[in-house]
């Protein structure tokens, strides 16, 4: 009956009436005033997920997010959050599809903090915070996500890099890069991430800095030492370079490796695989400096096509997740991430891993949005050169000046 009525009403010479239907709905939707309960209180949240994340790590991340949404909805009656998860390699396409329809998600939770391309494509818009609201975030975290004074994103968690090892097979982890080579020579299976971002901690140990402070000269010697070390490491039969983190994580879990450089994001699956045998330490330092890996953030960004009401709801969700109670609960529950709220005093003695992560965060290098963009642009050509050195195709002496030229070309401000 309903079908017959619909068919008659909507068909066909009055078909334009069907086109008016969305218009009428939109008029109703637009008239929802701020703070009104009932219809129009749903915001959409798009969560980016790493392409090759282990299922357990993915589940842990999703479950945590779902729990937070339930908590938020409980304290904000009437408000609903529509959660959608998308892999990193599908993020651009998903955003492009939605943006072309005017249906950009109200809130994005990103794996990294490369926000400038999203801003330039018009996918995200800056957020304004009151002084009181800014207190929810570490100042350096906020600064890291600013561009020309605009706050393009807000941090949720900090994910530093650590060294993960099998305590049963390697009672004492290496303290220096030289120790790492020595352990490799002694038959301990070492796994290293050969990706350009995954090698930055090694480079920093030689005093290298991709983004030297203003006025400081670029350290060319560090680059050659770094590349030479990579060549030396690959000469050791028990030191293996792999192209993605999942291989390292799985390799440590199934006993293929005894020591790997790891991200705190992988800890749920490593804990499950190794249990009490899982050992964690800071990454080994180099001959010049301690290892300073690049600090990764889990970042919030706000959709550019939201109504004011939706934007406010999205802000509320972010601020809710960054308040002292929620951040502390999440940090203690996961035990693998460091909160961004500076007002939290974590029981670091009771949770030694959090203490270690805290130390790793302090020793990590933060990239601001411009540096992050330059780093991303540099990644592909630099990787080619590094792969040639690691594989033995080219000597470090050949690759070092080329890599230096690439780095300098990517940064207009660096002294030559």
């Amino acid at each position, binding site marked *: 009956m309903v*079908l017959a009525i*619909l*068919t008659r009403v*909507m*068909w*066909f*010479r009055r*078909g*334009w009436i*069907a*086109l*008016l239907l*969305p*218009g009428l*709905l*939109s008029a*109703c*939707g*637009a008239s*929802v005033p701020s703070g009104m309960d009932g*219809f*129009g*209180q*749903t*915001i*959409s949240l798009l969560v980016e997920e790493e392409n090759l994340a282990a299922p357990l790590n993915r589940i842990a991340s999703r479950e945590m997010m779902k729990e937070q949404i339930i908590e938020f909805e409980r304290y904000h009656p009437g408000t*609903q959050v*529509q959660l*959608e998860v998308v892999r990193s390699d599908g993020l651009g396409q998903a955003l492009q*599809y939605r*943006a*072309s*329809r*005017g*249906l*950009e998600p109200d809130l994005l939770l990103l794996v990294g903090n490369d926000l400038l391309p999203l801003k330039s494509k*018009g996918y995200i818009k800056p957020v304004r915070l009151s002084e009181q609201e800014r207190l929810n975030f570490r100042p350096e975290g906020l600064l890291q996500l600013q561009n020309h004074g605009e706050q393009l994103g807000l941090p949720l968690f900090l994910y530093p890099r650590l060294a993960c090892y099998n305590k049963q097979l390697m009672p004492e982890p290496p303290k220096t890069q030289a120790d790492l080579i020595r352990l490799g020579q002694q038959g301990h299976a070492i796994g290293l991430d050969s990706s350009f971002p995954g090698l930055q901690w090694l480079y920093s140990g030689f005093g290298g800095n991709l983004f030297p402070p203003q006025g400081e000269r670029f350290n060319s010697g560090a680059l050659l030492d770094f590349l030479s070390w990579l060549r030396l490491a690959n000469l050791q039969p028990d030191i293996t370079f792999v192209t993605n983190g999942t291989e390292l994580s799985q390799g440590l879990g199934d006993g293929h490796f005894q020591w790997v450089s790891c991200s705190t994001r992988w800890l749920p699956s490593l804990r499950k695989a190794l249990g009490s045998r899982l050992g964690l330490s800071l990454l080994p330092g180099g001959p010049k400096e301690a290892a300073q890996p690049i600090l990764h953030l889990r970042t919030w960004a706000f959709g550019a*096509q*939201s*109504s004011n*009401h*939706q934007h406010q709801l999205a802000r509320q969700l972010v601020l809710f997740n960054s308040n002292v109670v929620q951040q502390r609960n999440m940090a203690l529950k996961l035990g693998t991430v460091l909160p961004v709220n500076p007002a939290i005093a974590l029981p670091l003695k009771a949770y030694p891993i959090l203490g270690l992560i805290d130390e790793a965060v302090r020793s990590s290098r933060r990239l601001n949005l411009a540096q992050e963009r330059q780093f991303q642009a540099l990644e592909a050509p630099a990787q080619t050169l590094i792969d040639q050195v690691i594989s033995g195709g080219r000597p470090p002496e050949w690759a070092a000046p080329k890599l230096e030229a690439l780095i300098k070309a990517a940064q207009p401000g660096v002294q030559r």
Partner: protein
Amino acid sequence: MNSIVLAFDDLFSDFSRPAVLWQLLVLLLVIGLWFPLKGVLRLEVKFWPLERQFPWLGLVKPLANETLLWLLLILASRGLDALTGVAGLALFLARFYGICLLSRVLIVVLYQHLPLELVRRADLRVLRPLLTIGGLLSIFAQLSDLSLLMQAPLFSLGGQVISFGDLMLLLFGTYFLAAGTALPALALAWITRRLFNLEGPAYRATALLIRYMIVGLGLVYILAQVGVNPTLVAAVGGGLSVGLGFGLKEVFSNFISGLWLLLEGAVRPGDVLLLESVNGEDPCEVLELGMRATTLWRDRDNVELVVPNQTFFTQSMSTYSGIRDRRRRGQVLIGAAYRHPPEQVIALLEATAQTIPRVLADPKPKGLLLRYDDSAITYAIRYWIENPMDGVGVASEVGIAVWNAFEQAAIEIPFPQRVVHLDSEHQGLGSD
């Protein structure tokens, strides 16, 4: 149920986005512009320059205003896209309107090549509902998470959770199975006919059987997709068996009877049957042989009679369109006075019947002396007609022609006469 509320609230929220509002506003403006424009252009009534060279243009002319609207919608959406880069929704709506328009053109073309009723049914029962439902779901999918809505649980049936999508599949899937399989079944039957050189009745039966088979398999597929518990199906099947034994016996019997009649070819669409009624026997034409009943048409009062299939299966029936031919023999009875020689009357009757156009010349009309009645000799003029449904009309024409012929030939059609003789002797005695 909460998921359904969430999905619809999400849909509602999406309509409050400025970029969505802009797109819809542009579409509304286009519709507003289209109204006066179509009044000015009057495309549907004006003569088109190429109409003579391309006569098919005349067929699509009634869709001229809708085509104009579609062009305007596409132009506006493209313009918005070029200006802002955000017009995906407007383009989708314009394209969907274009698909609807194309379906109308398709129907116009099909009307030229296929039986009118078949196309009309396919259009009304399948194409329009399909586009309407598909359109609504597509618009929903553009704006909100359709999978969330489809997976939203509605109720539990025998321990099995039925989601919104399951319900949609059950409702619309079965509807489209029942309504939309006629044409595919006909196509398959046509192939079978070509392969096995099937006769008419067998062809129709094959088409129906193929259709029932598609519907049956489709239902099994739908139930499997929905994930209905096999135990539940068995329980329902058991209940159905009991139902068949009691209440559904007649339904099942009619269904089987219909199939049998089709296979046998005893009753086919187009046949003319004699159906008993209070007025005697009425010839009726078979219009359709359905799953439960057969539809007959009685021309006397233009009534469509729905007769259960079982009736034809269990009772004897007279048909004019059986194995031999479709011809019907009619007769008109008439009385002529005793004084007219029978040879003259019979010759006149035969000659008169031959003047009626709908009376067949071969076999010739035959006049007969039937009996000697009280007031007249009763004659019959028997003749053959091509269409059995014309029996009453031709009989009337023959009757009128005979009356006129008798009038001209001064042959009396006597009315019943009774001569009463009074006995005078008995009358006189009585008076004493």
